[in-house]
């Protein structure tokens, strides 16, 4: 045996393709029983090309290096009491939403890639899924670890995993991943690998994380960028699955296009929560949601779909609707959470005058016309001691499970209503995108666990708000929920920094 150094391509072949074997005493279809029912046709798995050609030995080496860097920074962050150095305590509420709403999604993705990796007949794809499953597990662990530091100083972090399975707004991300994981292996790959990882996660992990850095949160930016460094590899896996499926058989095109349409829409609806985090929950602003959307969807996504046109793939249905909504959704979703701030495990608030001026400047076509008068009214009510909370449970969309607060882009002061009837029952939707998804597979979406309906069916701990929010959700009432102003979080922050409570400021101002 010679000692010559083998090159990357050869090493990749040896450490992936060479790990496979022929199935001599079991039928191939028995080994991979889920490969055909979605209608996808695969003729030759050997055509799979992993662009990164990362082998397991290199994977462990570089992942270990990433972990060492990450934990060095997390240690420095906690040793230095750096939670005191974030811009202000309102910011921490974005991190609460991250831990309860996003980190459990990383865990769902880990399980999903574990399941799917088992079901794909090609060894290259299986190895890539295995690495991604391990990556996702690393993400959820490092995120929980990083945010456990905040749990020592701020409210609302304590029961994130319990809450993820129960709380009304967390059902948005839970049902998104449940939907993907209960689909077949190829739909899962298009849903999470391509539509989510390639087209949309940049919007979560790049501008928001840069914003975390700009707000003094080195712990979050570090776990965020450490995760996103894996996402870059996941993105190329997502793109490879699309190219591979389209090169395998022409019959795959309409199926793949439908999945792209579906998961683009589901993803944009879920990211409306990130839109609100960007525009409302970062006291120091890096860029607006609209600007981030233009860079990472319109420009980067536009390049991607132009590139895929050679396979016959088109921009997702309703991309134009999503583009029009970029000037509205962050304000609409913040309105929803402000309405129901008594039922959230994080605090909400009205932006300051200066912050509203920033929103007016960034959203010249919409903010002053549609949203500023509403927010000023809410501020007046708060100053008069009557902070607005919506007393009635919201109507939810059957598909995305978000309150029906999105408006018609042709008439932005009108709620967008859509309805279908199936098997003698009405189903209601926030958009054509969500209605199409239901209409294609009603047998699946009739079983949606809609939090509001579950409360009315008596399945959430009892009839009173205290039963549902306190006992069933485990929100510490009067502590985790309600407005930031007057919260224990605010009080502690002010003591740590010798600041005057906002309540006193309001009294002096009035």
């Amino acid at each position, binding site marked *: 045996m010679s000692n010559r150094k083998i*090159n*990357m*391509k050869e090493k990749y072949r040896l450490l992936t393709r060479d790990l496979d074997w022929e199935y001599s005493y079991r039928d191939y279809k028995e080994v991979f029983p889920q490969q055909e029912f979605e209608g996808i046709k695969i003729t030759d798995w050997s055509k799979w090309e992993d*662009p*990164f*050609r*990362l082998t397991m030995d*290199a994977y462990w080496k*570089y992942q270990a*290096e*990433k972990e060492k*860097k990450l934990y060095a920074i997390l240690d420095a962050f906690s040793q230095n009491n750096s939670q005191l150095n974030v811009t202000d305590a309102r910011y921490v509420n974005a991190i609460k939403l991250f831990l309860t709403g996003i980190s459990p999604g990383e865990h769902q993705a880990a399980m999903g890639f574990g399941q799917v990796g088992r079901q794909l007949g090609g060894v290259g794809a299986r190895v890539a899924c295995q690495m991604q499953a391990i990556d996702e597990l690393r993400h959820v662990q490092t995120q929980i670890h990083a945010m456990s530091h905040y749990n020592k100083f701020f409210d609302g972090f304590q029961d994130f995993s319990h809450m993820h399975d129960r709380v009304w707004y967390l059902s948005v991300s839970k049902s998104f991943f449940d939907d993907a994981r209960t689909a077949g292996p190829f739909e899962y790959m298009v849903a999470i690998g391509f539509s989510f990882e390639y087209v949309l996660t*940049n919007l979560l*992990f*790049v501008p928001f*994380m*840069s*914003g975390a*850095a*700009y707000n003094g949160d080195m712990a979050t*930016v570090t776990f965020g*960028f450490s995760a*996103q*460094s894996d*996402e*870059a*590899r996941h*993105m*190329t896996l997502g*793109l490879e699955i699309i190219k591979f499926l389209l090169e395998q058989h022409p019959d795959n095109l309409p199926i793949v296009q439908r999945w792209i349409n579906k998961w683009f829409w589901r993803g944009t609806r879920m990211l409306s929560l990130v839109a609100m985090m960007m525009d409302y929950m970062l006291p120091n602003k*890096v860029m607006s949601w609209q600007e981030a959307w233009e860079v990472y969807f319109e*420009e*980067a996504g*536009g*390049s*991607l779909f*132009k*590139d895929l*046109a*050679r396979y016959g793939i088109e921009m997702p249905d309703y991309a134009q609707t999503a583009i029009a909504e970029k000037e509205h959704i962050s304000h609409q979703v913040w309105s929803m959470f402000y309405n129901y701030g008594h039922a959230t495990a994080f605090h909400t608030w009205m932006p300051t005058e200066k912050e509203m001026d920033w929103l007016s400047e960034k959203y010249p076509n919409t903010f002053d016309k549609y949203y500023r008068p509403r927010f000023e009214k809410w501020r007046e009510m708060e100053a008069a001691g009557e902070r607005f909370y919506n007393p009635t449970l919201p109507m939810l969309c059957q598909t995305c499970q978000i309150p029906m607060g999105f408006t018609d882009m042709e008439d932005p002061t009108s709620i967008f209503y859509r309805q279908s009837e199936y098997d003698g029952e009405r189903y209601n939707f926030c958009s054509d995108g969500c209605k199409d998804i239901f209409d294609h597979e009603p047998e699946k979406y009739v079983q949606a666990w809609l939090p509001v309906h579950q409360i009315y069916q008596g399945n959430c701990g009892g009839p009173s708000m205290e039963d549902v929010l306190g006992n069933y959700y485990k929100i510490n009432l009067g502590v985790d929920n309600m407005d930031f102003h007057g919260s224990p979080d605010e009080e502690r922050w002010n003591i740590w920094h010798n600041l005057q409570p906002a309540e006193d400021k309001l009294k002096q101002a009035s």
Partner: protein
Amino acid sequence: MSKAFIALQDNEESHYIVEAIEQDNPTATVIYQPAMIRIENEGRLVINRATVEEKMGRDWEIPALHVNLITLGGNVDEDDDQFSLTWKQ
């Protein structure tokens, strides 16, 4: 034409990689944002191992890019000596 792009964490090691990218892609634009550096170029962006090694003054392997990488846009092609991002249209 579409822009191929890469974003790196803003740290000491990345600064050498960025210098190498600037040298090998003269039309590239470098954008500094909080904690990150984004480099974009029309159509294609290439990172050569030899240039990065020259800037760092030590050996460097292409997969080490993963340690400082945040995100990218374009079709990836990677071998022992170079890493490129390309849009084909």
